[in-house]
């Protein structure tokens, strides 16, 4: 290769070109703007407006959109049904999230016990429901709850418990939480188990020499070490819980216990499509998204404090 060529076109090629990265990022930025930023911006815009009907609402120009400031937010926050739906989701989440995380942690720790048998089988089996989408899982469990076909009902009858309605207005919380537990416990277990596997085994050895039992090692060493993974799974589970929609919507045809506004997101859907009030729906969406963000940021702050605070 002659030095003349190197000094010419080739030399410029050697260093990373300056315009290429921007070109490579363009598609992602376009999609991000079109399907994330723009919808959010449009929702904020709609949430500040309302359709104004003048006179009888007939004729051109009788209906027009006007700016109403925070009126939609005030209305949303004063809507008792929104708070009731939020309350229901809190009960549901209060049942689901701690149970799911505790079980996932238990399973992950047991998978990490070296002498446990059939680990691979159990791991795959418990993770498998994650592949089943919430709607299909709800259909599946919905049939298992339905008195006329339910094996659960059959077992309960056999042990002398009669007339248990798994879809009544109180048991529905447990029944719904169970569907989400079934679908989510395996995923969380895998996340925690992966974190456990990343810990060098040698750390446990000195504890074993000191005579610590496996339970003590789990409680005193393993759980503190995987705290970041625990908090992350907590964040993701909480976010998913606040947005619950598919499970109750799918079970609705099977029971009268679920209203059309059972969860906040179902209420937003009702406002937008059944009542044709996109302005209220937009304001409520922003409120829900805001609460979700506060939750995630709160958890992430906690994560940073726990994960990095100890090192200082």
């Amino acid at each position: 290769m002659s030095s003349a060529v190197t000094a010419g076109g080739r030399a410029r090629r050697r260093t990373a070109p300056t315009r290429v990265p921007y070109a490579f990022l363009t598609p992602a930025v376009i999609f991000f703007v079109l399907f994330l930023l723009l919808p959010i911006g449009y929702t904020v815009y709609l949430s500040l407006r309302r359709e104004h009907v003048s006179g009888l609402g007939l004729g051109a120009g009788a209906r027009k959109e006007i700016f109403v400031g925070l009126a939609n937010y005030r209305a949303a926050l004063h809507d008792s049904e929104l708070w009731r739906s939020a309350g229901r989701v809190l009960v549901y989440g209060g049942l689901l999230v701690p149970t799911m995380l505790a079980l996932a942690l238990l399973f992950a720790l047991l998978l990490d016990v070296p002498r446990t048998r059939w680990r691979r089988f159990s791991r795959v089996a418990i993770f498998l429901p994650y592949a089943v989408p919430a709607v299909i899982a709800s259909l599946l469990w919905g049939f298992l709850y339905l008195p006329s076909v339910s094996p659960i009902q059959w077992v309960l009858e056999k042990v002398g418990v009669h007339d248990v309605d798994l879809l009544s207005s109180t048991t529905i919380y447990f029944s719904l939480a169970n569907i989400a537990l079934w679908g989510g416990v395996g995923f969380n277990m895998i996340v925690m188990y992966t974190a456990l596997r990343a810990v060098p085994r040698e750390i446990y050895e000195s504890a074993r020499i000191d005579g610590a039992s496996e339970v003590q090692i789990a409680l005193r060493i393993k759980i503190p070490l995987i705290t970041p993974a625990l908090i992350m799974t907590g964040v993701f589970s909480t976010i998913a819980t606040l947005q619950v929609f598919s499970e109750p919507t799918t079970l609705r045809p099977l029971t009268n216990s679920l209203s059309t506004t059972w969860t906040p997101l179902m209420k937003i859907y009702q406002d937008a499509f059944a009542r044709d009030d996109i302005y209220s729906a937009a304001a409520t969406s922003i409120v829900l998204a805001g609460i979700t963000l506060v939750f995630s940021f709160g958890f992430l702050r906690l994560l940073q404090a726990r994960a990095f605070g100890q090192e200082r």
Partner: protein
Amino acid sequence: MSTVRVPAPPATSRRILRDPEAGPARSRPAVGPTIVLLVGALYCLFPVAWVLIAASKSTAQLFHSFTLSPSTSLFGNIGDLSSYEGGIYWRWMANTALYAGVGALLSAGLSGLTGYTLAKYRFRGRSTIFNILLAGVLVPGITLAIPQYLLLAKVGITDSYLSVLLPSIISPYGIYLSRIYAAAAVPDSLIEAARTDGASELRIFGSVAVPSMLPGLVTVFLFQFVAIWNNFLLPFIMLSDDRKFPLTVGLYTMLNQGNTTPALYTLVVTGVLLAIIPLVALFLSLQRYWRIDLFSGAVKG
């Protein structure tokens, strides 16, 4: 990612310490943990076993025979399901494969290109762009569906394949994973060598970066596949033509009609079974890509 490597103690000290993962202790199985895990596995497999049994029953048997005794109507039920409204079930299946498969493929490609660019190029605004994209992880995905509908309605492309496909392509989490994966798996020396050989930047991405990042990209693909296939609200809102439905929305509408026509319950049960099979197969065959470390994003393949 465990970049810290603790040196393994020499073999002799290992034997003295009786590492429980090796040596005689291995032969004593931990009974308690094994049983608890098997109970968990049973709980997770039980509904799948039930649906397999239930799908083998005729409508009368579904409601009147013992719930756990199988019957012989499975193929009859599949036949009935296949002829339901001119075989629309299989169309839903194909639609699902299209939405989730093509959507996840495009998403993995876009995430890969974006993550690679953010990891391997130095340019002005790099960290700003990354942080803005990353903030998208915290945006509650499902609450976006209604605004996305309102926007697409303005453009007039709701009730089309694109209306479900396009919003599924951008994945902040996929970009995040890809960036970490590109930083760890694509050697700078290979990029430099390719550049010296005069390869174009796009070609370097295609022939150097993609092969090195492939396991990570498969994980991104799987994540996005499950996310799209799980997202009920988006197609539920966007689509009104039942010939464009994915399986989830299709089966939901069938269940809704089942209130008045109990025979549809049998078809829904059969439909649920047939929907689960391909997914479980995909899942099991790509199982090793599911070792996820959410915190560092590392994938231990």
